Each structure stands twice: as C-alpha cells, then as structure tokens.
C-alpha cells in the first residue's frame, strides 16, 4: 500500500509476519497499532501513562497529542518515549483524536486505540479490545457497575442512561457506556474517522458512534475495569450535571438528524 499524501511519517506496516499461533498474531497486531493519548495539561500523569503503555503493549507506537497545553505535557511525553504531536491551540478531545486518526492513516497503521492521559484507562485491557476488533470496527471499553470504582448519580446518570438506550438502538448492539473515551478502531473506522471526527463537546464520543454506524461500521463493547482518575473525582455538581444532560440530548439529536454523507453520496 502506498500512501500518496505528503505527510507519510513511517513506512507502511501491512507486513504479514504473524505466524499461526495466537501469540505472534497478537504481536503483529500490536506492531500495526497506534495508541493515541489526547492530553490537555496532564503533565502529572502523561509520563506514567506512556510508560505503562509501552510496558504492557510491546511494539505499539504511542502518539501523545498535546492539545494546546500550557504546561510540560509535551516534554514529559517525549521523555517517556512517546511520539508527540503538538497542536498550536486547544481543539478539544475530538480535534486531538482526529489528528491521531490522520497520523494513523498516513503512517499506515491498521488499528488506532484511544487512551486518556489521566491514567483512568488501564493499558492491560487493550489486548481484549483489539481481539474484539475481529468482528467489529469500533470497540468501546465500557465501565461496568461491578468493576472499578466508577459510579454516577442524578442528572448525569439519566444522561448516560438516555444516551445508552438511544445509541444502543442506533448501533443495534447493547451499549452501557457510550461516553467512555477508551476505544479501539479497526481499519474501516480509522479511515472514516481521519476524515470525519466531530470536534464538539460530547461529539467525539456520542456523535462518532452515530457516524460510524451510518457508514456501515459495527460497534461492540468490551467490559473493562477503570481506575479512579488520578486528578480528582468526576463532578457531582447538580447544575453541571444538568447542563451535561442538556448538551447530551442536543448533541445526540443533531447527530441523528444530520444528513448522512454516505447516504447523500449513494443517491448521487
């Protein structure tokens, strides 16, 4: 495969070194995997996250996208051995991820995994998510009630329940944690997201699923245990939670109401 665009940074990695046994298949899968870590002012945690990724996922490339941080996020990530992309100003998680997907496509990576820089996501769970990409294009690492310490209540809980029910219907699979940023994408989704990845707040998690489904990608979830955030607990401020609910509803409504580009193209 030859990438015609000018931004090719690495050689393409569609090599077929994987042997018959599962272990070397996993190894070759990891060699074709790009782990993207969107980071905004995460100098305290980004270094250990990168170390942990390299320790648990041998052979992956780790791209830290410094989303316009004012602190030392970029140099901490570089010291830890990550490839670092520095955005000139803050774009939000959606913008940082689209950059990650673009880098992935131009570098010829088949799989892109998103891991948050706050240490909430455990890289040891990535193998299970990559394995699940066998029958799906997007795999969500979902927080389950029983596993980990994550719980929510009030309007935030209603928002998440509403998003789960609606998106489960859209994607025709049971999703319990649609706002999870812990995701793995297969080749079809990587290509799609490098062109179309919503940058709006909540768009990167919610609308991305709608876009993927509309373009014929299949979505699955894999239960994972998540650790509490290193930098404080999720907000339980009821006003903020209510605003979150409202934004979730609006984001989802417009995601579903938006004319599909795939459909428009087919009609032409």
């Amino acid at each position, binding site marked *: 495969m030859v990438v015609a665009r000018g*931004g090719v*940074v*690495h050689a393409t990695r569609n090599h077929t070194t994987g042997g018959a046994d599962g272990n070397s298949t996993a190894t070759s899968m990891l060699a074709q995997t790009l782990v993207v870590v969107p980071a905004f002012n995460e100098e305290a945690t980004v270094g250990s996250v990168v170390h942990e990724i390299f320790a648990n996922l041998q*052979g992956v490339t780790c791209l830290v996208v410094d989303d316009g941080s004012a602190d030392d996020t970029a140099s901490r990530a570089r010291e830890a051995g990550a*490839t670092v992309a520095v955005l*000139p100003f803050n774009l939000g998680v959606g913008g940082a991820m689209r950059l990650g997907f673009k880098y992935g496509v131009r570098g010829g990576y088949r799989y892109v995994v998103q891991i948050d820089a706050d240490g909430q996501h455990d890289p040891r769970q990535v193998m299970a998510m990559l394995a699940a990409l066998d029958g799906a294009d997007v795999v969500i690492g979902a927080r389950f009630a029983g596993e980990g310490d994550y719980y929510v209540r009030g309007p935030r809980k209603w928002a998440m329940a509403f998003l789960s029910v609606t998106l489960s219907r859209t994607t025709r699979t049971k999703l319990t944690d649609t706002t999870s940023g812990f995701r793995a994408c297969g080749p079809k989704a990587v290509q799609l997201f490098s062109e179309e990845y919503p940058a709006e707040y909540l768009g990167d998690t919610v609308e991305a699923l709608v876009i993927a489904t509309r373009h014929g990608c299949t979505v699955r979830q894999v239960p994972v245990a998540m650790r509490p955030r290193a930098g404080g607990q999720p907000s339980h401020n009821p006003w903020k939670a209510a605003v979150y609910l409202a934004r979730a509803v609006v984001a989802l409504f417009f995601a579903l109401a938006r004319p599909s580009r795939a459909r428009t193209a087919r009609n032409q």
Partner: protein
Amino acid sequence: MTVALYILGIVSAIVTLGVVVELLRRRRLRERHALWWLVAGLLALVIGVYPPIVQAAAELIGVQVPANLVYFVSIAILVLVNIQHSAELTSLEAKNRVLAEEIALLDMRLNSLESPSAEISTDTTHA
C-alpha cells in the same frame, strides 16, 4: 415632517452606502458580506428620498403604524446578517481546526527530518 428631518434621512442613508462602497473599494469588505448592507442602505435611501412609500407599503400589508414596518424590516435584516455571520464563523472554525491539525503533523515531520538519529531509532523500533 420638517426639511431638516427629510435631509437627515437622506444623509444617513448616503453615509451608510458611502462607507460600504468605500470598504468594498479598498477590499476591506468582501462582496458576499456587503450584499445585505448594500440592500439595507439602498432601501434607506429610497425611503429617505420618498417617505410616502413606507405609508403605502404599510397600508398594503395592513400594518397600522408605518414606523413599525420600518422596525420590522430593519430587525429582520439584522437577524439574517447575524445568522449568516454565525454560519461563516462555524466554517472558519472548521477550516482553522484542519489547519491546526496539519500544522501539528508538518511540525512532527519536520522534527523527524531535522534529527536523523531520531528517525533511525523510530525505524528500528518498527522494523
């Protein structure tokens, strides 16, 4: 209506039109953005020169106080211009975002080209 008021109407319309045309002439304003302001300025000039036209239009539509028609049209134009600006702003933001992403990618590529040792180490990691 006093003569002074009549002149004030015409002068303000001409000043508005003059500003728009001058900005266009100096390329400080693009035609697509100036369109609404030209329409509004011309409308004001026509009404300034011949005020009974407002009266006639108000009667035609059924607006009881002619001044209300003027307010309605003015506000409608301002609202439309605002919506257009919001849409333009959105598309500018989207382009801005793409540029930021491309700059970040180019910056990485430049760094890797300027430090060959880093490039070699990256290659061996993935070979």
